[in-house]
């Protein structure tokens, strides 16, 4: 986890919406979760209700990220 790469994941309808499941970015130009979204989606509008996680914990869009983090975006969950 000591490299400068940030892993980005999209799930379910959001994966289909952005047209990719996994992406990467570098620490240098992505300091927050929302910046990771903008970078990976080429500034697509984020759908309302999008949930965000960093290293598998729910966070807000302004949450800081650092090298090695895994950032995930997904729609409201519908399991159970």
């Amino acid at each position, binding site marked *: 986890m000591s490299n400068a790469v940030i892993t980005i994941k999209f*799930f379910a309808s959001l994966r289909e919406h952005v047209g990719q499941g996994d992406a990467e970015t570098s620490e240098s130009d992505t300091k927050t979760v929302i910046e990771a979204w903008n970078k990976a989606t080429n500034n697509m509008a984020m759908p309302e209700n999008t949930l965000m996680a960093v290293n598998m914990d729910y966070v807000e869009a302004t949450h800081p990220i650092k090298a090695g983090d895994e950032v995930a975006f997904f729609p*409201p*969950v519908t*399991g*159970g």
Partner: protein
Amino acid sequence: MLIEIKDAPFEPYQRLLEYQAAADFSGKYGATAVFVGSMREFNQGDDVTVMTLEHYPGMTEKYLQKISQEAADKWDILDSLIVHRVGEMLPNDPIVLVAVWSAHRAEAFDASRYLMEELKSRAPFWKKESLKEDTRWVEKNT
């Protein structure tokens, strides 16, 4: 306290009995509250032929573990078991099993319902329904 993700059909009551037989709370439980969620052959007025459950591997397990621990902290229970299916499933297939064992009934009832409500709102699973001519993501947990 155990959580399991299954990518193939499972029989919830059979799994529950196996778990119970191997558990160390024999003779101590007076109450078992169980919830089984299963696939219906219709939703929102449409026939559903197949359902696909996607999940976020790793985060799913983390959150199921987390809510299991929360229930164990909030109520005086003896043990809990959560099993959740992923992948393609057919009508009547079990999706989720939640079981809670306790000495008295109130705790088992409360904790099992807590586990289901938290699972439904926090565990990263998503359902996609195959209708006769289309597929659609389920958007609301009803």
